[in-house]
């Protein structure tokens, strides 16, 4: 089954207003964004954005091309069909009493998650993984009562390989895009 959720990675210039340009583009073109995560990358003047788009509701190829048109966006690629490592981090604040705390800790251990804060009536759990893992843990903890959830959205990277998110253009002076890959329609 083809994945409907697409992971796009964009390297953007680390300048004021770039996030606004990207967000404005999504709004204007009616693109549905599941998540967007932004942070520094290996090159100081660039930032890295990981964007998850639902392919069922949004034309992913248009998202990629429109993003590429933004002058401050240096490079974009859809890495959905590549071998990737994808992770998300979540913080879950769960209601806990002396009676339930040890059960919560057991569940957290099974998920290789961590308790990062303990209070009288709650514990805060830090969990890293793909969305499925975070969703499963959230579902399991829901029975205890979840007070607060914070999630980062997906970040992703190609497995192995040379490093940059996409191979550079073939050195034939024909640009960096392979027009044959343009999806018809």
């Amino acid at each position, binding site marked *: 089954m083809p994945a409907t959720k697409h992971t796009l990675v964009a390297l*953007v*210039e680390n300048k004021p*207003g770039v996030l*606004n*340009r990207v967000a*404005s*583009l999504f709004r*204007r073109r009616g693109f549905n964004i599941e998540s967007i995560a932004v942070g520094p990358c290996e090159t100081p003047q660039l930032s890295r954005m990981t964007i998850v788009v639902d392919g069922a509701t949004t034309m992913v*190829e*248009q998202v990629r*091309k*429109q993003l*590429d*048109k*933004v*002058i*401050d*966006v*240096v*490079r974009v690629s859809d890495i959905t069909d590549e071998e990737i490592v994808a992770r998300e981090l979540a913080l879950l604040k769960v209601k806990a009493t002396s009676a339930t705390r040890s059960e919560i800790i057991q569940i957290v251990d099974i998920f290789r998650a961590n308790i990062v804060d303990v209070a009288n009536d709650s514990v805060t759990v830090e969990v890293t993984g793909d969305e499925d893992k975070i969703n499963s843990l959230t579902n399991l903890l829901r029975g205890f009562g979840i007070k607060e959830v914070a999630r980062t959205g997906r970040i992703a990277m190609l497995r192995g390989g040379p490093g940059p998110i996409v191979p550079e253009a073939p050195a034939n*002076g*024909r*640009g*960096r*895009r*392979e*027009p*044959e890959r*343009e*999806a*018809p*329609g």
Partner: protein
Amino acid sequence: MKMSGGQIVCECLIKEGVDLVFGILGGAILPLYDVLPQYPQIHHVLVRHEQGAAHAADGYARATGKVGVCFATSGPGATNLVTGIANANLDSVPVVAITGQVARPFIGKDAFQEVDITGITLPITKHNYLVTDAGSIARTIKEAFFLARTGRPGPVLVDIPRDVFIEEAEFHYPTKVNLPGYKPVLHGHPAQIKKAVKLINEAQRPLIIAGRGVIISGAYDQFRYLAETAQVPVVTTLLGIGCFPESHVLSYGMVGMHGMAYANMAVNNADLIIAIGMRFDDRATAKVAGFAPSAKIIHIDIDPAEIGKNVRVDVPIVGDVKEVLDELNRTIAKTEHVDWITQMDAWRREHPVTVVKDGGGLIPQFVIRQIYEVTKGETLVVTGVGQHQMWAAQHYWYDRPNSFISSGGLGTMGFGLPASLGVKMGRPGETVWCIDGDGSFQMTLHELATVVQEKAAIKIAIIDNGYLGMPRQWQELLYAKRYVASRLIGPDFVKLAEAYGIPALRVTRREEVTAAIERAMAEPGPFLIDFMVEPEENVYPMVPPGAALTEVLEEPKPLAKALADSGRLPNV
């Protein structure tokens, strides 16, 4: 040498070859205006509203292929540019807008005449900048001009705070730009070119749909070579008019909502569409689902994001039209399509849309045709937006390159007069006719003062029907003649022109038309003619909104009947 920010802006403009700027001054941009007299090579045209500055810069850019420049102050000055910038953006016109901003310490404080113009224009510019120190003005303006004119052209706005104009910095104009995220693809992919050539050589019923990309790229010769060698009939979009001589045997006029019936029929029956420098706008395609049902589509465009955006494409070629056509032409075979062209000629005979009926009252089509006859087609036509624009597109034959200048994508009423000013100032040796509607003209008529001030010898033809004609036509045809708010009481345009110092005539009968146009042509300066035309004349052919190109309606009766037959309710 140290210079003020204002001086640096002027030095940059000179380096970019700018000798003409349209604008209006105001508090935040005063320090720039203060140094303008030090640069007499830059002629500043004081317009009467900033929208006029943006349209004039736009018209100048379209007519010359150079970057048009406009100035405005902060706040309302900048927001008044917005319509003009959006217009340039949708039609891919290279314009650089320089706006004053409140001084840096006041930014974000809702200061007097402060607006976030970079935020406001973000979705309607190719790129924009807020300059935060005088030392980065030169690099920014270099980038702005580079971005505006290369790749798919478009407007770039540079917002400069008042105190940055005053701040001093060293001036060095960079020779190169550093834009790692901007690399327009110019050459077509060889494998795609090969596929396209194969399709063209094998096609039985090929058709070229050409857009303004051909004009922007200056690919007239390459385009003509392709059409003639492969014997492919040519139709154009509204803005593609002027990319190929309309009297050429292979030219079949304009497609789309008000395109020629035979052009639309050709699209419906073609087995190959070669779309060149156009973007499948909904006014050109009509209902996408019914567009070119039996055709494969080759799409040549410099903007990869246009490929597959509106219409499925079989062979996309991303690149500059001129480069791509050069590459295509190298291997294109000499072909003939006698049957197909015979068929198209038959359609043209059966659906003679460009015939102007004899006798009767003064109709707009007759006026446009007479302008063509009297000027022998040797004029640049600039239009506003509305019925008159469609008649000007249909009933004048544009044989000369880039001789039709009009607002396509945004459909900006009021574009005509200020754009004519920019066109005339960009190509002063040409005769410029501004064909406008009474509604469209009234949106920017204050620029008559600028026309007089600049002694710009523009000939203005107002197609005066006392209505906002295009919406009235829709109300007549789609809303059971409920003319809500479309009746327009105009001023006496002749007296109005005279008040501005422009000689003018009123024409109410067919017999007076030729003499009036000749009179206008004889006048060394600007001249205005108010053509009082039949008020309820409609633009035909017409593809009703939401219909496919096949549902082209050519005369009032069949249209009413077709609407009744289909039980269609207006949905727009």
